[in-house]
């Protein structure tokens, strides 16, 4: 009978729809676990990078805010206290023994104390920190301009990236110390700082003392905390997981402009 046929057709269709939905979602989960599919998906993020470089000038400045916009208590995310005895010893003495080593593909390698970093030309800026998770916080940063420091150490021609090696291990027993990298355009950008002050006080440990990178046009995970050593390299393919940063090695994009 027609009504019965109609009903069974509807029931069939409903079940087919449910099964198709489950299949699609299950299929998407299975695809996410393959080697090749996430690589295909990553072309979307490669296009993001290409398009953003195309339309935004390389020297474009990140928005700066007023004191009224400051977030009360700048949020600490990730490591709040590096689990490392050498770092703990430095922190116990207020980083008096801290030295920032700058080397790699440079003509003039250097090692700077915190006082020497503070003596470099500085910049103060109130900027918005955008975490990849979705939240934003506004803070006032003061630090040495990385560009000025690079002019002093004189990168060699083949230097393409600046690596930042940090004090905080991301795994138990001191394994997988945090690291990050940026390109030379970002390195020489006027707002790119080695920050030593947050909201007018020395950078707190939970926010990356004694030195934290500020690279204002990218997401929070690029802003390496607890920076101990800077190295200029031609390629980061052979460093740690080879993707240019701790989170990049976990599957996040090296380009964090969106």
């Amino acid at each position, binding site marked *: 009978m027609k009504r019965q046929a109609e009903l069974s057709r509807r029931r069939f269709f409903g079940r087919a729809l449910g099964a198709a939905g489950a299949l699609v979602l299950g299929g998407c989960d299975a695809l996410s676990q393959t080697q090749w599919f996430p690589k295909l998906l990553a072309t*979307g993020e490669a296009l993001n990078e290409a398009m953003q470089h195309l339309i935004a000038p390389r020297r474009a*400045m990140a928005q700066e805010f007023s004191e009224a916009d400051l977030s009360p208590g700048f949020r600490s995310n990730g490591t709040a206290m590096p689990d490392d005895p050498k770092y703990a010893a430095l922190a116990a003495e207020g980083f008096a023994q801290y030295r920032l080593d700058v080397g790699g593909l440079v003509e003039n390698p250097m090692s700077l104390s915190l006082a020497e970093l503070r003596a470099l030309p500085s910049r103060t800026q109130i900027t918005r920190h955008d975490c990849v998770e*979705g939240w934003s916080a506004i803070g006032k940063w003061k630090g040495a301009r990385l560009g000025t420091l690079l002019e002093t150490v004189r990168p060699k021609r083949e230097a393409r990236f600046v690596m930042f090696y940090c004090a905080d291990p991301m795994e138990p027993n001191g394994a997988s110390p945090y690291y990050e990298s940026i390109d030379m355009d970002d390195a020489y950008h006027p707002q790119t700082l080695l920050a030593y002050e947050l909201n007018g006080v020395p950078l707190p440990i939970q926010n990356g003392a004694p030195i934290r990178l500020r690279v204002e046009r990218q997401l929070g995970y690029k802003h390496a905390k607890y920076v101990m050593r800077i190295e200029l390299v031609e390629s980061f393919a052979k460093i740690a997981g080879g993707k240019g940063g701790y989170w990049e090695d976990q599957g996040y994009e090296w380009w964090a*402009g*969106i």
Partner: protein
Amino acid sequence: MSSSPSAAAAERSGSYLYYRHRLPVRVMHWINVVALTLLFLSGLNIFSAHPALYWGKSSYTGKPPLFQIATRETEEDEVIGVTRIFGREFDTTEVLGAATNAEGDVVARTFPGWLTLPSDRWLSMARRWHFFFAWVFVINGLCYLAYSIMSRHLARDLAPDGGDWRSIGRSIIDHLRFKHPTGEASKRYNVLQKLAYLAVIFILLPLVVLMGFAMSPWLDTLIPGWVDFFGGRQSARTIHFIVAWLLVAFVLIHVFEVIISGFWNHLRSMITGRYRVDGEAPR
């Protein structure tokens, strides 16, 4: 006289097939279905990384979030899922904030697994899906716009004419009574349908993309401060989320209207292009 038996049957029953949707529109419609679905599901996974919405330039302004999905323990040490809207808290265990897992334990979970892509919380992978299908969606959308303007699909089929505006009251009443145009009138979109499509094409979809751009710290540098026009980056994120749900609401109404006004007929017309119209075929 008709030569094929099916055409003859159609003529006897007083209906005929009308070529309603042209191939480019059909193809772009289904690409859009796939892209928007995957964007929505991966978007909810991304949202799960920080399931709270704010109004303003930052998340931390001293004011609580407008909306938040959270997991917390009760005084009896029970894990519950809660949803807070304008400071009011609702217990949403099993739906939002917490759910029972395969082992029978109540654990933190912002959305049910079937509503997110990937089904488990996995921000970096969700971002890959989201940005890839964002490009599919944007390129498809631009092709649709170009096609609709050049083929006059926009001017002929979507732009309301004088008659449409005059019939708007009638159309609202018809929709509320689930009454739909039949015969020759069913070949055209009705005025509410046109307005709904235009609002989605020219307001909601561009807005959701623009608010996606506003969340990009790099694109924010294009004209420093442009994001404040929408209330700031966190407001933009909130608008992005609200518009996504408005699009879901549109899809639910769209599918509902399709079902009650002839599901198989509409489905066929969006696959083969041919829509069955009651009455005699015009000669």
